[in-house]
């Protein structure tokens, strides 16, 4: 192929010629750009997901413990056994509670950051919300093990403020109680709430930033008081942000298997079930079937969220 068009500046060297080729054929260049990342994600990631899906249709031979590589729905059937189904329900309820309370705690922070913080304070707010998001996950779980331990700081505070009776009463309750906070659902709940809070704050703040000032002023001019403005103008406009945040808190709670193992009672959550099945039990098909559950739940959740306009708030 001759590259030098008449009158064009002389182009020498293989690099220049290659560069010209790319200029004339942007599609070729695009293909070259996209091939390595797509190859990586396609093979390493999509390939793995396909392998996961395939394994969930296999079953395990109960006598030999070996994986039978034949198509069956038996493994999915096992999910409906009471013990396994309880795990799914328990995890979904926990995820829903964490999401609900996360929204309640996150909203004032997001509201303050979006409407009142300016300049340096705003930068500081952003940093304070973002730092925990990126800092060590395991260390943050561990911090709560220290705090919630029976001999730890919460018991100390309860002892010195005369609220020990209240703490013991809470711990003696069925379901939410336990021998100590670090061995109870309450503890697991608190840690999840703490871990995922930044994921809730950021989208809410983003959606609040986009509420036009003129709308709020218009509501005031039309006679709405602060409360009415909030409930009829600000909150509905912030709703997509809340839904977007809930996607994170919900998905992250569904898939976590570390937190309930470090802080929590001995009953399993979904992630732990996956982990134990693939590890100790060596039952990769059941582990795979278990891990399809959060994918399906999140698929439904995302479809609903999309209808509510949550993706525009991301």
């Amino acid at each position: 192929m001759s590259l030098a068009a008449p009158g064009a500046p002389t182009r020498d060297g293989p690099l220049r010629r290659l560069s010209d080729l790319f200029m004339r054929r942007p599609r070729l260049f695009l293909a070259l750009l996209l091939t390595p990342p797509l190859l990586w994600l396609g093979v390493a990631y999509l390939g793995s997901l396909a392998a996961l899906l395939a394994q969930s249709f296999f079953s395990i031979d109960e006598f030999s413990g070996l994986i039978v590589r034949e198509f069956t729905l038996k493994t999915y059937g096992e999910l409906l056994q009471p013990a396994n189904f309880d795990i799914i329900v328990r995890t979904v309820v926990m995820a829903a509670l964490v999401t609900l309370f996360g929204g309640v705690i996150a909203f004032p922070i997001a509201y303050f950051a979006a409407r009142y913080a300016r300049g340096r304070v705003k930068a500081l707010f952003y940093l304070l919300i973002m730092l925990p998001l990126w800092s060590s996950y395991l260390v943050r779980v561990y911090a709560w093990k220290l705090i919630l331990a029976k001999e730890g700081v919460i018991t100390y505070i309860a002892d010195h403020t005369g609220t020990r009776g209240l703490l013991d009463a809470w711990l003696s309750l069925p379901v939410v109680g336990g021998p100590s906070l670090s061995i109870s659902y309450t503890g697991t709940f608190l840690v999840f709430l703490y871990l995922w809070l930044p994921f809730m704050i950021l989208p809410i703040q983003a959606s609040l930033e986009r509420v036009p000032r003129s709308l709020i002023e218009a509501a005031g001019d039309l006679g709405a008081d602060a409360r009415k403005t909030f409930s009829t103008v600000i909150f509905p406009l912030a709703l997509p942000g809340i839904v977007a945040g809930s996607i994170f808190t919900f998905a992250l709670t569904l898939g976590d298997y570390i937190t309930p193992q470090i802080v929590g009672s001995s009953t399993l959550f979904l992630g732990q079930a996956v982990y134990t099945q693939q590890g100790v039990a060596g039952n990769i098909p059941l582990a795979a079937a278990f891990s399809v559950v959060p994918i399906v739940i999140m698929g439904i959740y995302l479809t609903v969220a999309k209808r509510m306009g949550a993706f525009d708030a991301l």
Partner: protein
Amino acid sequence: MPSRPPLSVTLAAAAGLLFLHLPLAFIFLYALTTEEKSYQFPPPGFTLKWFAVAWDRPDIWQALGLSLRVASVATALAIVLGTLAAAAMARYRFFGREAVSLLITLPIALPGIVTGIALRAALNLADIPFSFWTIVIGHATFCIVVVYNNAVARLRRTQGSLIEASMDLGADGFQTFRHVVLPQLGTALLAGGMLAFALSFDEVIVTTFTAGQQQTLPIWMFSELIRPRQRPVTNVVAVMVIAVTLIPILAAYYLTRDGEAVEGASK
């Protein structure tokens, strides 16, 4: 428009932020305690000896070394792959563009355990033994999106006219990339790379599925949390992990703070 926030909002916001940051203080406190069998509060006494004990533990050094190596290689891979993807997505419109965008974000959109078990299932199906590279594959997969997010945000703000001007003045594509695009992209890549490093250094969920018997620092810590040996030593390591991840995060923030480039919400 009220310029002063209501007291209740201020208090709720302050309490929320306190809830978000206070717990880490206890990690530091307990790294100095003299009590090694329990988490007694307040600590009966304070000592610096656990730092010396941790220093002399070969298992910690080994785990740290593996974590640093994995994070370096995974970050390098993620920078290359993430930048290529960002260049394609920022400059071109093509069929299947949405699907590519979804594919890039999927590894962090799905719960980490799904990525983990999927890789584990694939290794199992293909009979690949666990190694350094199996850990790297997992980490690079979810680090790509971090670099991508930073690079694509910067490329969108880079003016196309600058590139055209460079070409009009006779520079070829490579020279334009070297002298015009790269200087603008540099800090975004550095920031993305640092975040990817922090993410990889700290990762435990995917790693447990792809590491086999190898111990990265987070896996070492995880096993110490399940079966504690010397609790204050774990705290010393935790303090170190906070330091190692905090520095790149802060640096990344200062490199990109004049834009919306740090995609915090999409970890």
